[in-house]
């Protein structure tokens, strides 16, 4: 376990990059939204000023975790780290980062509410679709998507590392076949209305904390299986 923590510390040695990119991009997105919101008059707003700018930080983390594999994996293996420990450390990093960053956004959301949307009714950290009743559920809705993008990033990094461009081409080809077949089946069996209403029935928590967690775990497991026998 100590070894896992040490490898996580190596991944965090350049912590300024982790902080700077994620929060820098988010701050930029926030600033742009703030300016736009400030320029809008009340009459322009139909109900609520909705923005998806929050997604930017999740994208940064997605890319950063792909980099964990492509950049740190060969380095750490040459420095006497096993694949198992390296992957566990990456998972620990993902978990820690999700908790810290998710909590930070939750806190910003509280400030946002307290200031009436930063005094210009900007709902940047708490857009309507992610609003939850309880604090815990609200917090989960911010945290779990970080795990999702970290897991997807790691899986994407492993795919690139182990199979390169051909790997991606196979994934795209298989996706087209699988989703095409599923779509065809849905059409033939006339089950689109059922699928539509099932999707609409899902709650925000169900999607953001439930399904996202399931996909994150699946990505992490698949990533590990592929990395286990990957050359550095």
């Amino acid at each position, binding site marked *: 376990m100590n*070894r896992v923590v*040490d*490898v996580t*510390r*190596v991944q965090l*040695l*350049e912590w300024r*990059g982790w902080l700077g990119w994620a929060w820098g991009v988010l701050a930029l997105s926030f600033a742009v939204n703030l300016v736009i919101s400030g320029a809008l008059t009340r009459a322009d707003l139909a109900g609520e000023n909705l923005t998806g700018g929050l997604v930017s930080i999740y994208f940064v983390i997605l890319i950063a975790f792909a*980099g964990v594999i492509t*950049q*740190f994996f*060969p*380095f*750490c*293996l*040459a*420095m*006497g*780290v*096993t*694949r*198992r*420990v390296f992957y566990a450390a990456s998972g620990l990093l993902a978990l820690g980062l999700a908790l810290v960053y998710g909590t930070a956004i939750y806190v910003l959301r509280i400030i946002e509410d307290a200031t009436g949307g930063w005094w210009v009714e900007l709902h940047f950290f708490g857009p309507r679709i992610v609003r939850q009743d309880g604090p815990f559920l609200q917090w989960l809705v911010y945290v779990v998507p970080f795990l999702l993008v970290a897991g997807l990033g790691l899986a994407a990094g492993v795919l690139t590392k182990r199979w390169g461009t051909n790997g991606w081409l196979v994934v795209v080809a298989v996706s087209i076949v699988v989703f095409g077949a599923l779509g065809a089946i849905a059409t033939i069996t006339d089950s689109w209305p059922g699928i539509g209403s099932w999707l609409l029935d899902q709650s925000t928590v169900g999607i953001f904390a439930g399904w996202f967690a399931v996909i994150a775990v699946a990505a992490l497991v698949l990533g590990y299986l592929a990395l*286990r*026998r990957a*050359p*550095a």
Partner: protein
Amino acid sequence: MTAVVRVRNLTKRYRDLDALHDVSFDLHEGAIHGLLGRNGAGKTTLMRVLTAQALTTSGTIEVFGEPPFENERVQQRICFVGESQRYPASFTVHHVLEAGRLLYPTWDAGYAAHLAADFRLPLRRPASKLSRGMLSAMGIVVGLAARTPFTLFDEPYLGLDAVARQMFYDRLLTDYAEHPRTVLLSTHLIDEVADLLERVLLIDNGRLLLDDDAEALRARAVTVAGPLPAVDEFVVGRHELHRERLATFARVTVPGPLDPAEHDLAGRLGLELAPVSLQQLVVRATGREDGAAATADTSEGVLR
């Protein structure tokens, strides 16, 4: 001597190419081993497999008595300095040394700082902005300061000037004397390191041609030089490994070692005797210019 590394019937296949073919050898504790061979001979592949960076196709590897693959205990005692080692792009020299401190129980931070200063490494410069020579120097600092019981250097000198290369050899020898460990060093600059090496492994086309003491190896062949008739008289009935001729002057390489009587004879004939350098030996054993058959013949002659 105890074997730190034990390799048996190791084969590594890439599609239809055998990068390593049925390789077996031991590496001895507390010795500097040279891993020699031409480009594409399989040196890097062998090192990557030994350090569990890459997987074997068949055969067994034991490092410190255990298979190294995914073995925490073993891996922490191995440091691999690769010729084209990748570093996280945002990492500075300082970060790389910090990583060494965190990952190696045997890491000597004071020594690392000292070495970094000697090699004039800019501590705050990102790895992505280091020159080829600086990257090599950083790898050397990591490999030496890690002080791991088994350390591998894969052509660690690329881009280094003569002064820095000499510094590497000096530091390696000094630190090795104070902190004995098993070193495997792959190199093309054979003459430069010949004095460092205690054991020599020579691979060609993925096959191990040679695994012997450097000393014994040097005695395996002798070059006889002098006037053509005298040389011919001396080498008559001997297996000639190599012959060069310049007008009435000849230089012939024959299998060694020579006994005292033979030395006397050479003296009487006015011939010059010289040991064959490791580099020449390697060139003769792996040269391709005479075609495969001739090479096999020459290497048999030198190596058996």
